[in-house]
């Protein structure tokens, strides 16, 4: 099979069959890319994973771009990203086109009244696991609290707070810890 077609169909499959966010895609990406296609070995996969996690951007797109680049250069990376984004693009576009027409339907209305508070809970749940995993101390645990206050009460853009956090990290490691 043509390599570009192969890359495209592999990533389209990954994009189409993983529901519920980026990390849910991980097992499928691994089985396709490492076990089936043998584009990367275990160690390379872990490297690509670590870098995709720490780099900014949509995690799955980072993975696709990186793996595509390894397999077939810049063209491969474009094809891989296109493949993994296309299924959700088409699905959401169809929903967006038709959602307006049945949004005012009474059944849909009451279903979404039930769903909305659950979505808020789904967003809040990872906070517990993440805060445990970070080993925050008395001082560093103030950072998430201050961030929350700045955004909610003062409507500061998260972008500025992220930049401040990065600078604080550099400042701490190079000036105070030394």
């Amino acid at each position, binding site marked *: 099979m043509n390599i570009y077609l192969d890359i495209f169909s592999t990533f389209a499959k990954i*994009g189409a069959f*993983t*529901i*519920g*966010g*980026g990390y849910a*895609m991980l097992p499928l990406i691994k089985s396709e890319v490492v076990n089936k296609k043998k584009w990367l070995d275990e160690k390379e996969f872990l490297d690509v994973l670590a*870098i995709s*996690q*720490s*780099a*900014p*951007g*949509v*995690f799955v*797109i*980072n993975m696709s*771009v*990186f793996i595509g*680049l390894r397999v077939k250069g810049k063209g491969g*990376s474009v094809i891989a990203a296109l493949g993994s984004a296309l299924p*959700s693009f088409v699905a*959401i*576009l169809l929903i*967006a086109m038709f*959602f307006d027409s049945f949004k005012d339907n009474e*059944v849909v*209305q009451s*279903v*979404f*009244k*039930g*769903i*909305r*508070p*659950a*979505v*808020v*809970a*789904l*967003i*809040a*749940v*990872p*906070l517990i696991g993440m805060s445990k995993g*970070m080993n925050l101390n008395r001082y560093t645990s103030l*950072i*998430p609290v201050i*961030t*929350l206050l700045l*955004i*909610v009460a003062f*409507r500061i853009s*998260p972008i500025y707070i*992220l930049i*401040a*956090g990065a600078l604080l*990290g*550099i400042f701490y490691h*190079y000036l105070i810890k030394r």
Partner: protein
Amino acid sequence: MIYIQLFITFFKIGLFTFGGGYAMISLIQNEVVVKHQWVDASSFTDMIAISQMTPGPIGINSATYVGYSVTGNAFGSAIATFAVSLPSFIIIFLIAFLYTQFKKNKWFDAALSGIKPVVLGLIGAAATLLVTEENFIDWTSWLIFGAAFAITQWGKVNPIYIIILAGLAGYLIY
């Protein structure tokens, strides 16, 4: 022009997203709901629910959705989706080029150590900002919130089932 605004907004969102989809919610919310007011808080919540039930990452899903609802056509979706993905290309190409230096770059690690606790606050803020009168209409809303929280936290249930169950509860209650 709306297409340029969409492009800049989603490029920014892609560029500043650290730590996955949930961290991204706060950025998207700030740009799309608070700043540009392209979508209101309850439609934004619906969009997240839809993106949890459809294939693909939240970043791509929300770009496609917002792009369509702002412009009313598929071209708007394409622009926003392209813009949110573009930073990945720039940054991953750069990293692949400087691979060995990047792998043990102390400056980057130091910056990341400051970003991580901020991400925690971002997710907390995203959840807090969604506690609105439209999303929590009465005490049963809080009951659904509590149940969904408990089941996800201790039951390790897939979010899709939580949304389906909550939708069913909504249908029966309201």
